[in-house]
Protein backbone atom coordinates (compact mmCIF):
# COMPACT_ATOMS: atom_id res chain seq x y z
CA UNK A 1 0.00 0.00 0.00
CA UNK A 2 1.37 3.37 -1.02
CA UNK A 3 0.39 6.50 0.88
CA UNK A 4 2.05 9.70 -0.32
CA UNK A 5 4.94 7.75 -1.81
CA UNK A 6 5.55 5.73 1.31
CA UNK A 7 5.11 1.99 0.99
CA UNK A 8 3.50 0.27 3.96
CA UNK A 9 3.02 -3.46 4.34
CA UNK A 10 0.39 -3.34 7.05
CA UNK A 11 -3.06 -2.07 6.13
CA UNK A 12 -4.11 -1.52 9.71
CA UNK A 13 -3.63 1.95 11.19
CA UNK A 14 -3.97 2.18 14.94
CA UNK A 15 -4.80 4.96 17.36
CA UNK A 16 -2.88 5.25 20.62
CA UNK A 17 -5.54 6.57 23.00
CA UNK A 18 -7.71 5.02 25.72
CA UNK A 19 -5.58 1.96 26.48
CA UNK A 20 -5.51 0.69 30.06
CA UNK A 21 -1.76 1.36 30.28
CA UNK A 22 1.21 2.30 28.14
CA UNK A 23 2.45 -1.28 28.38
CA UNK A 24 -0.80 -2.62 26.99
CA UNK A 25 -0.64 -0.05 24.21
CA UNK A 26 2.86 -1.14 23.30
CA UNK A 27 1.85 -4.78 23.24
CA UNK A 28 -1.23 -3.98 21.17
CA UNK A 29 0.83 -2.08 18.64
CA UNK A 30 3.16 -5.04 18.32
CA UNK A 31 0.30 -7.52 18.09
CA UNK A 32 -1.43 -5.46 15.43
CA UNK A 33 1.59 -5.39 13.16
CA UNK A 34 0.74 -1.79 12.36
CA UNK A 35 3.34 0.47 10.82
CA UNK A 36 1.44 3.69 11.31
CA UNK A 37 -0.09 5.02 14.51
CA UNK A 38 -2.00 8.19 15.21
CA UNK A 39 -1.07 10.61 17.97
CA UNK A 40 -2.23 14.00 19.15
CA UNK A 41 -0.71 17.12 20.69
CA UNK A 42 -1.81 18.07 24.15
CA UNK A 43 -0.65 20.59 26.71
CA UNK A 44 2.64 19.67 28.33
CA UNK A 45 3.73 20.75 31.80
CA UNK A 46 7.37 21.62 32.28
CA UNK A 47 7.37 19.70 35.54
CA UNK A 48 5.47 16.54 34.68
CA UNK A 49 6.44 16.05 31.09
CA UNK A 50 3.95 13.23 30.43
CA UNK A 51 4.28 13.72 26.73
CA UNK A 52 8.04 13.24 26.72
CA UNK A 53 7.79 9.80 28.24
CA UNK A 54 4.95 8.80 25.96
CA UNK A 55 6.71 10.01 22.85
CA UNK A 56 9.85 8.12 23.82
CA UNK A 57 7.89 4.94 24.20
CA UNK A 58 6.25 5.27 20.79
CA UNK A 59 9.53 6.06 19.07
CA UNK A 60 11.09 2.96 20.53
CA UNK A 61 8.43 0.87 18.84
CA UNK A 62 9.75 1.87 15.45
CA UNK A 63 6.41 2.79 13.90
CA UNK A 64 5.66 5.76 11.72
CA UNK A 65 3.45 8.45 13.27
CA UNK A 66 0.42 10.19 11.81
CA UNK A 67 -0.34 13.22 14.01
CA UNK A 68 -3.94 14.32 14.21
CA UNK A 69 -5.81 17.55 14.77
CA UNK A 70 -8.40 15.88 16.98
CA UNK A 71 -10.71 18.22 18.78
CA UNK A 72 -10.23 21.13 16.40
CA UNK A 73 -13.50 22.78 15.39
CA UNK A 74 -12.11 25.60 13.24
CA UNK A 75 -9.81 25.87 10.27
CA UNK A 76 -7.47 28.08 12.27
CA UNK A 77 -7.14 25.60 15.14
CA UNK A 78 -6.55 22.75 12.74
CA UNK A 79 -3.95 24.59 10.71
CA UNK A 80 -2.05 25.81 13.76
CA UNK A 81 -2.13 22.34 15.27
CA UNK A 82 -0.81 20.88 12.02
CA UNK A 83 2.11 23.28 12.08
CA UNK A 84 2.97 22.38 15.65
CA UNK A 85 2.69 18.70 14.78
CA UNK A 86 5.01 19.00 11.82
CA UNK A 87 7.69 20.48 14.03
CA UNK A 88 7.33 18.10 16.95
CA UNK A 89 6.81 14.86 15.07
CA UNK A 90 9.13 15.70 12.21
CA UNK A 91 6.64 14.64 9.55
CA UNK A 92 4.54 16.49 7.02
CA UNK A 93 1.78 13.91 7.35
CA UNK A 94 -1.31 15.12 9.13
CA UNK A 95 -4.61 13.44 9.91
CA UNK A 96 -6.87 16.40 9.41
CA UNK A 97 -9.95 16.56 11.61
CA UNK A 98 -12.19 19.60 11.57
CA UNK A 99 -15.09 18.59 13.77
CA UNK A 100 -18.49 19.98 12.92
CA UNK A 101 -20.75 18.50 15.54
CA UNK A 102 -20.05 17.58 19.13
CA UNK A 103 -22.56 14.73 19.27
CA UNK A 104 -21.50 12.77 16.24
CA UNK A 105 -17.96 14.16 15.99
CA UNK A 106 -18.64 14.34 12.29
CA UNK A 107 -16.43 16.32 9.96
CA UNK A 108 -17.26 19.90 9.06
CA UNK A 109 -16.77 19.32 5.35
CA UNK A 110 -16.58 23.02 4.60
CA UNK A 111 -13.80 23.69 7.09
CA UNK A 112 -12.14 20.45 6.11
CA UNK A 113 -11.77 21.38 2.46
CA UNK A 114 -10.49 24.83 3.33
CA UNK A 115 -7.95 23.54 5.84
CA UNK A 116 -6.87 20.81 3.44
CA UNK A 117 -6.15 23.42 0.78
CA UNK A 118 -4.17 25.65 3.11
CA UNK A 119 -2.13 22.78 4.46
CA UNK A 120 -1.50 21.18 1.07
CA UNK A 121 -0.23 24.50 -0.19
CA UNK A 122 2.21 24.62 2.70
CA UNK A 123 3.58 21.21 1.82
CA UNK A 124 1.60 19.03 4.20
CA UNK A 125 0.48 15.59 3.10
CA UNK A 126 -3.08 15.56 4.31
CA UNK A 127 -5.12 12.54 5.43
CA UNK A 128 -8.60 14.09 5.71
CA UNK A 129 -11.14 12.55 8.05
CA UNK A 130 -14.25 13.01 5.94
CA UNK A 131 -17.69 11.59 5.18
CA UNK A 132 -18.61 9.29 2.32
CA UNK A 133 -19.83 12.30 0.30
CA UNK A 134 -18.53 12.01 -3.28
CA UNK A 135 -18.60 15.71 -3.95
CA UNK A 136 -16.65 16.52 -0.82
CA UNK A 137 -14.16 13.86 -1.87
CA UNK A 138 -13.75 15.54 -5.22
CA UNK A 139 -13.08 18.86 -3.51
CA UNK A 140 -10.54 17.32 -1.17
CA UNK A 141 -8.66 15.86 -4.09
CA UNK A 142 -8.83 19.23 -5.76
CA UNK A 143 -7.39 20.77 -2.59
CA UNK A 144 -4.36 18.54 -2.90
CA UNK A 145 -5.22 15.46 -0.85
CA UNK A 146 -3.97 12.17 -2.25
CA UNK A 147 -5.60 9.96 0.38
CA UNK A 148 -9.18 10.03 1.69
CA UNK A 149 -10.39 8.75 5.04
CA UNK A 150 -14.19 8.48 5.15
CA UNK A 151 -15.84 7.49 8.39
CA UNK A 152 -17.57 4.17 8.86
CA UNK A 153 -19.66 5.47 11.75
CA UNK A 154 -19.21 8.10 14.45
CA UNK A 155 -15.90 7.96 16.32
CA UNK A 156 -16.01 5.46 19.16
CA UNK A 157 -19.50 4.21 18.32
CA UNK A 158 -18.44 0.68 17.31
CA UNK A 159 -21.34 0.59 14.85
CA UNK A 160 -19.34 -0.50 11.82
CA UNK A 161 -20.26 0.73 8.36
CA UNK A 162 -23.39 2.87 8.65
CA UNK A 163 -23.72 3.50 4.93
CA UNK A 164 -22.28 0.63 2.93
CA UNK A 165 -23.92 1.91 -0.21
CA UNK A 166 -22.20 5.26 0.10
CA UNK A 167 -18.82 3.74 0.83
CA UNK A 168 -19.15 1.42 -2.15
CA UNK A 169 -20.07 4.34 -4.41
CA UNK A 170 -17.02 6.26 -3.21
CA UNK A 171 -14.76 3.31 -4.01
CA UNK A 172 -16.28 2.96 -7.48
CA UNK A 173 -15.93 6.67 -8.13
CA UNK A 174 -12.27 6.95 -7.19
CA UNK A 175 -10.68 3.65 -8.19
CA UNK A 176 -7.15 5.03 -7.95
CA UNK A 177 -7.22 7.03 -4.74
CA UNK A 178 -6.16 5.28 -1.53
CA UNK A 179 -9.28 5.10 0.66
CA UNK A 180 -9.12 4.33 4.37
CA UNK A 181 -12.13 3.74 6.59
CA UNK A 182 -11.51 5.83 9.68
CA UNK A 183 -13.71 5.65 12.77
CA UNK A 184 -16.70 3.65 13.90
CA UNK A 185 -15.29 0.15 13.46
CA UNK A 186 -16.29 -2.12 16.36
CA UNK A 187 -15.33 -5.70 15.52
CA UNK A 188 -13.05 -7.44 13.05
CA UNK A 189 -15.90 -8.39 10.74
CA UNK A 190 -16.51 -4.67 10.20
CA UNK A 191 -12.88 -4.19 9.22
CA UNK A 192 -12.96 -7.19 6.90
CA UNK A 193 -16.12 -5.88 5.27
CA UNK A 194 -14.45 -2.51 4.64
CA UNK A 195 -11.50 -4.23 3.01
CA UNK A 196 -13.80 -6.44 0.93
CA UNK A 197 -15.28 -3.24 -0.51
CA UNK A 198 -11.81 -2.55 -1.87
CA UNK A 199 -10.66 -0.01 0.69
CA UNK A 200 -6.88 0.20 1.08
CA UNK A 201 -6.78 0.23 4.85
CA UNK A 202 -8.65 0.70 8.10
CA UNK A 203 -7.87 3.06 10.95
CA UNK A 204 -9.22 2.26 14.38
CA UNK A 205 -8.60 2.94 18.02
CA UNK A 206 -11.39 2.46 20.54
CA UNK A 207 -12.36 -1.01 19.31
CA UNK A 208 -8.92 -2.22 20.32
CA UNK A 209 -8.17 0.05 23.26
CA UNK A 210 -11.43 -0.58 25.10
CA UNK A 211 -11.81 -4.26 24.36
CA UNK A 212 -11.58 -6.54 27.36
CA UNK A 213 -8.22 -7.76 26.05
CA UNK A 214 -6.75 -5.07 23.81
CA UNK A 215 -3.69 -7.04 22.77
CA UNK A 216 -5.70 -10.02 21.61
CA UNK A 217 -8.12 -7.71 19.85
CA UNK A 218 -5.24 -6.01 18.06
CA UNK A 219 -4.19 -9.38 16.71
CA UNK A 220 -7.77 -10.10 15.69
CA UNK A 221 -7.98 -6.92 13.66
CA UNK A 222 -4.63 -7.58 12.02
CA UNK A 223 -5.94 -10.88 10.69
CA UNK A 224 -9.31 -9.47 9.68
CA UNK A 225 -7.74 -6.71 7.63
CA UNK A 226 -5.52 -9.20 5.84
CA UNK A 227 -8.50 -11.50 5.30
CA UNK A 228 -10.58 -8.74 3.78
CA UNK A 229 -7.78 -7.62 1.49
CA UNK A 230 -7.07 -11.14 0.26
CA UNK A 231 -10.76 -11.69 -0.36
CA UNK A 232 -11.00 -8.52 -2.39
CA UNK A 233 -8.11 -9.69 -4.54
CA UNK A 234 -9.51 -13.20 -4.85
CA UNK A 235 -12.78 -12.05 -6.43
CA UNK A 236 -15.59 -13.33 -4.25
CA UNK A 237 -18.82 -14.92 -5.41
CA UNK A 238 -21.80 -12.66 -5.88
CA UNK A 239 -24.64 -13.42 -3.45
CA UNK A 240 -27.62 -15.12 -5.06
CA UNK A 241 -31.16 -15.78 -3.98
CA UNK A 242 -31.41 -19.47 -4.75
CA UNK A 243 -29.38 -22.27 -3.26
CA UNK A 244 -26.89 -24.21 -5.36
CA UNK A 245 -25.64 -27.58 -4.16
CA UNK A 246 -21.91 -27.70 -3.48
CA UNK A 247 -21.73 -31.50 -3.57
CA UNK A 248 -22.30 -32.72 -7.14
CA UNK A 249 -25.78 -34.03 -7.94
CA UNK A 250 -24.57 -36.27 -10.74
CA UNK A 251 -23.46 -39.69 -9.56
CA UNK A 252 -25.77 -39.74 -6.56
CA UNK A 253 -26.58 -43.34 -5.63
CA UNK A 254 -30.19 -44.46 -5.92
CA UNK A 255 -31.05 -45.72 -2.44
CA UNK A 256 -34.71 -44.81 -2.23
Amino acid at each position, binding site marked *: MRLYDIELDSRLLL*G*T*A*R*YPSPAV*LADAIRASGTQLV*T*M*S*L*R*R*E*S*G*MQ*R*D*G*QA*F*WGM*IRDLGVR*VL*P*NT*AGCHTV*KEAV*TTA*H*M*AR*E*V*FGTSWIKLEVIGDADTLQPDVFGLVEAARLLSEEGFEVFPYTTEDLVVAERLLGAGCRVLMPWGAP*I*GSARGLNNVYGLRALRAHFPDVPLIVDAGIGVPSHAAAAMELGYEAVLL*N*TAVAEAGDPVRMAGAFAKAVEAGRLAYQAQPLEPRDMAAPSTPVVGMASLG
Partner: protein
Amino acid sequence: MRISLNGNTHEVAAENLADALHALDYGEAIIATAVNGRFVPAAQRRECKLTDGDEIEVVAPMQGG
Protein backbone atom coordinates in the same frame (compact mmCIF):
# COMPACT_ATOMS: atom_id res chain seq x y z
CA MET B 1 5.01 40.44 33.54
CA ARG B 2 2.00 38.19 33.74
CA ILE B 3 1.49 35.64 31.04
CA SER B 4 -0.84 32.72 30.63
CA LEU B 5 0.73 29.34 29.88
CA ASN B 6 -1.58 26.45 29.05
CA GLY B 7 -4.35 28.31 30.79
CA ASN B 8 -2.48 29.03 34.02
CA THR B 9 -1.23 32.45 34.95
CA HIS B 10 2.49 32.90 35.61
CA GLU B 11 4.59 35.87 36.66
CA VAL B 12 7.75 35.73 34.57
CA ALA B 13 10.81 37.93 34.18
CA ALA B 14 11.67 36.50 30.73
CA GLU B 15 11.34 38.85 27.79
CA ASN B 16 11.08 36.29 25.04
CA LEU B 17 9.47 32.93 24.60
CA ALA B 18 12.69 30.92 24.77
CA ASP B 19 13.60 32.41 28.14
CA ALA B 20 10.11 31.92 29.46
CA LEU B 21 10.15 28.24 28.54
CA HIS B 22 13.49 27.87 30.23
CA ALA B 23 12.19 29.59 33.36
CA LEU B 24 9.20 27.29 33.40
CA ASP B 25 11.35 24.14 33.39
CA TYR B 26 10.85 22.96 29.80
CA GLY B 27 14.59 22.59 29.28
CA GLU B 28 15.21 20.34 26.27
CA ALA B 29 11.69 18.94 26.16
CA ILE B 30 10.23 18.12 22.77
CA ILE B 31 7.45 20.62 22.50
CA ALA B 32 5.73 22.95 20.09
CA THR B 33 4.58 26.43 20.95
CA ALA B 34 1.97 28.98 20.02
CA VAL B 35 1.53 32.51 21.28
CA ASN B 36 -1.90 34.11 21.11
CA GLY B 37 -3.10 31.38 18.81
CA ARG B 38 -0.21 31.61 16.35
CA PHE B 39 2.38 28.92 15.91
CA VAL B 40 5.90 29.96 16.93
CA PRO B 41 8.52 27.62 15.46
CA ALA B 42 11.33 26.57 17.76
CA ALA B 43 13.86 28.55 15.79
CA GLN B 44 11.91 31.77 16.38
CA ARG B 45 11.31 31.44 20.09
CA ARG B 46 14.16 33.70 21.02
CA GLU B 47 13.00 36.45 18.69
CA CYS B 48 9.45 36.11 19.97
CA LYS B 49 9.08 38.95 22.46
CA LEU B 50 6.48 38.57 25.13
CA THR B 51 4.19 41.25 26.41
CA ASP B 52 1.95 41.36 29.39
CA GLY B 53 -1.16 39.15 28.97
CA ASP B 54 0.25 36.94 26.25
CA GLU B 55 -1.31 33.52 26.01
CA ILE B 56 1.19 30.77 25.42
CA GLU B 57 0.39 27.20 24.52
CA VAL B 58 3.00 24.48 24.95
CA VAL B 59 2.13 21.07 23.63
CA ALA B 60 3.80 17.68 23.29
CA PRO B 61 3.00 14.32 21.73
CA MET B 62 0.15 12.51 23.43
CA GLN B 63 -2.33 9.70 22.94
CA GLY B 64 -4.51 10.17 19.90
CA GLY B 65 -6.98 8.33 17.68
